[in-house]
């Protein structure tokens, strides 16, 4: 059973508490959303890299040459 770590800052006590069924369901939903978010981020990154490569190709420059140019 997954657990959470709860720290009571007024006493310094640390408790390891088992998650409730509701918390586990929330965790599973969050995991699904994280997967979707990561896919969106990777798409965005790939699109930016493709756009950059296209511009460099139009200019006839390598990535290294562009980096030198942009200083």
């Amino acid at each position, binding site marked *: 059973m997954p657990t959470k770590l709860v720290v009571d*800052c007024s006493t310094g006590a640390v408790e*390891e508490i088992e998650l409730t069924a509701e918390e586990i369901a929330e965790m599973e939903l*969050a*995991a699904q959303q*994280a997967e979707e978010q990561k896919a969106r981020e990777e798409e965005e990154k790939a699109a*930016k890299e493709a756009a950059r490569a296209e511009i460099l190709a139009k200019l006839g420059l390598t990535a290294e040459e562009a980096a030198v140019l942009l200083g």
Partner: protein
Amino acid sequence: MATTYEAIATVTVGSGGAASIDFQNIASTYTDISINLSARVDAANGVAQIYFNNSTASDKLWRRLYGDGSSAVSDSSNGTSSYVRPIGINRSDQTASTFGNMSIYIPNYASSSTYKSVSVDGVNENNATFAEAAFAAGLWQSNSAITRVTIIPSSGNFVQYSTATLYGIKNS
């Protein structure tokens, strides 16, 4: 010289892992608070999500800027999020047994008359491929004093030996 930086509490994840690290009952006696987190999660999609006072309202804004050595990306959430989402914990698809780290800074956390800002810098490591470095800024649009900060991976659990320390910081 007055002690202005005080470790309030520290926690280390045990062998079973942990779905979250939750600092509760934070006293209002400091000027600012900070959390240093060294962590790894057992999922490939896990990033840290920071919650305040157990609030799930969609009233948090955040901006992130991160780079991995080959590209830089920026993204944001404009008040539709229930958490602030920085980068800085290692994931299961990154180099084994390495931990990312992040420093979370929350100034004026005990105010009952201002929104709460947070800044986070973090890095994670993936040998021979990339290491991500990121800065994030967040805002909780609430006047409530922060008494609780919870860090939850978006996916998976914190693995054993992940640690978090909460510091209280006084201005004098």
